[in-house]
Each structure stands twice: as C-alpha cells, then as structure tokens.
C-alpha cells in the first residue's frame, strides 16, 4: 500500500494538470459569458464530488447505526470532512462566477441558500465530532448526518422544480451542452474524484492511526501506577 499511494498521487497530479489544460485551452469559449464561463469546469465537478462524498457519509452513518462498525464511523467522518472542503470550493467559486455574470456576488436564491445550509449542516457535524467528548458522539453524529443528507437531493433538484437565479441543469432536465464542453467537464470531474479519493484515503489512514494511539495512551494511563499516571496525562495535555 505504501508503494501504491505515491504512484496514484503522481497519476492524479498528472490527470489534474491535464484537466486544467483542457479547461483553459481546449474547451471552447462560451459566446455570452466569455472566458469566465470556464469556472464551470471547477465549480460543477466540485459540487458533484461534494454530493457523492455526502452520499457516502449518509450510507456509512446508516451502516454505523445498524452495526456500530468503527470502520463505518471513520468513513463517515472522513467523507464529511473532505465533502466540506469541496462544498467550500463550490461556495467560493460560485460568487466569483456570479459577480461578472449576474452583477452580484450573492443572492438568497433557493439553490444558493440550500447549498449554504448544506455546508453549515456538515460544518456543525464536524464541530460536534471535534469538540464533544461523550461516548455517544459517533451515534449523535450519525443521526445528524442522516438529517443532513436530506438536503443533498433538495440542493440537486432545486433548479429542476423551482425557478431560480441559478442556471438550469445542463445535463438532463432539458438542458444542452456542447459535446466538447461536456468532455472537458467529465475529465475535470474524473480528476477531482480521483483527488478526493486519494485525500479520503490519506485521511482514513491518519484517523485509524490517531485512534490506535489514543487507545494505547488510554490503556497506558490505566495500567500505570497512580503517581506516573498523573504525569502521563499532564504530558498528554501538554502535547
């Protein structure tokens, strides 16, 4: 596994570079918006990747509630964290695209508001996991994640069923996209998906290691004589 990771990292970096080249050079310039439309190749794949990660988080949370599996709990945590990063990209690139096209950075449109709510739900999920020391934290987080996941289809379908400021879907829903633009969009999505998978993998390994260290330290604190136990916990807090 240690050998496979650097190879996959190099391949992903190459794919991301190629996707960037396709987005900036190969993709045709849109007639009305001009070059600024190329933000589309980062904005949309980031949104799709975030939706997939939040969906995996939902499945892992359900599995955790049924089986109390430690692995499912870690997968839920990791996908929520990386999903928030991608959702942040969506919320940052969206206004940068909106300013020259709509003339405003932000509007309380249904799609935009629901995306912000989605981001806030998963940030609160991460805050809960980070600062709650209760043994029930994974259980509470799993329940919160299931409620949070309900917002994902609402965000996705909001532009299908309601008239919004946000553009209508270009794939499905009666929209049209130039085949070359679609090709570039899919390459960028593939590149960001590979990148997300790689980051999730690293974060998963880090979390497993962190839990092992925490368990070992807790066990050591229990087994040590009383005097040195205090010293261990002091060292632990200082670290």
């Amino acid at each position, binding site marked *: 596994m240690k050998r496979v990771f650097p190879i996959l990292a190099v391949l992903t970096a190459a794919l991301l570079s190629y996707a960037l080249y396709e987005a900036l050079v190969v993709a045709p310039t849109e007639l009305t918006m001009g070059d600024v439309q190329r*933000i589309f190749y980062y904005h949309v794949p*980031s949104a799709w990747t975030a939706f997939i990660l939040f969906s995996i988080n939902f499945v892992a949370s359900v599995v955790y509630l049924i089986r109390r599996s430690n692995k499912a709990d870690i997968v839920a945590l990791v996908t929520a964290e990386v999903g928030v*990063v991608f959702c942040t990209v969506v919320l940052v690139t969206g206004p*940068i695209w909106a300013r020259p096209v709509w003339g405003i950075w932000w509007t309380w449109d249904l799609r935009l508001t629901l995306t912000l709510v989605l981001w806030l739900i998963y940030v609160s999920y991460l805050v809960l996991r980070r600062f709650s020391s209760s043994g029930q934290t994974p259980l509470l987080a799993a329940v919160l994640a299931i409620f949070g996941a309900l917002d994902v289809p609402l965000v996705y379908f909001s532009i299908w069923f309601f008239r919004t400021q946000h553009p209508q879907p270009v794939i499905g829903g009666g929209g049209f996209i130039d085949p070359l633009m679609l090709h570039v969009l899919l390459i960028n999505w593939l590149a960001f998906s590979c990148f997300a998978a790689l980051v999730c993998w690293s974060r998963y390994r880090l979390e497993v290691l962190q839990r092992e260290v925490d368990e070992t330290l807790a066990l050591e604190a229990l087994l040590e004589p009383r005097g040195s136990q205090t010293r261990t916990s002091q060292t632990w807090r200082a670290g």
Partner: protein
Amino acid sequence: MSYLYAAYIATWAIHVAYLGTLLRRYIRLRNEIAEFKGREER
C-alpha cells in the same frame, strides 16, 4: 479573465490549506508516537 484566475487560485488555495492541516496532524501524531516509544524504552 481575472475572475477566472481568482476562482482557480481560490480552489487550489482551499485544497492546499486542507492538505496542510492533514500534514500538520500527521506530524503531530508522529511526534506523539515517538514520544510514546521513548517513554516505553525508558
């Protein structure tokens, strides 16, 4: 064109910042392990 570059730079700034936090956590964990091993040897 500046909006386009701003969006691309912002995207990578967010990803690099997150990767930086992962690296920092990894280094802290490695130090904890080294400290623990040192205590074990003593």
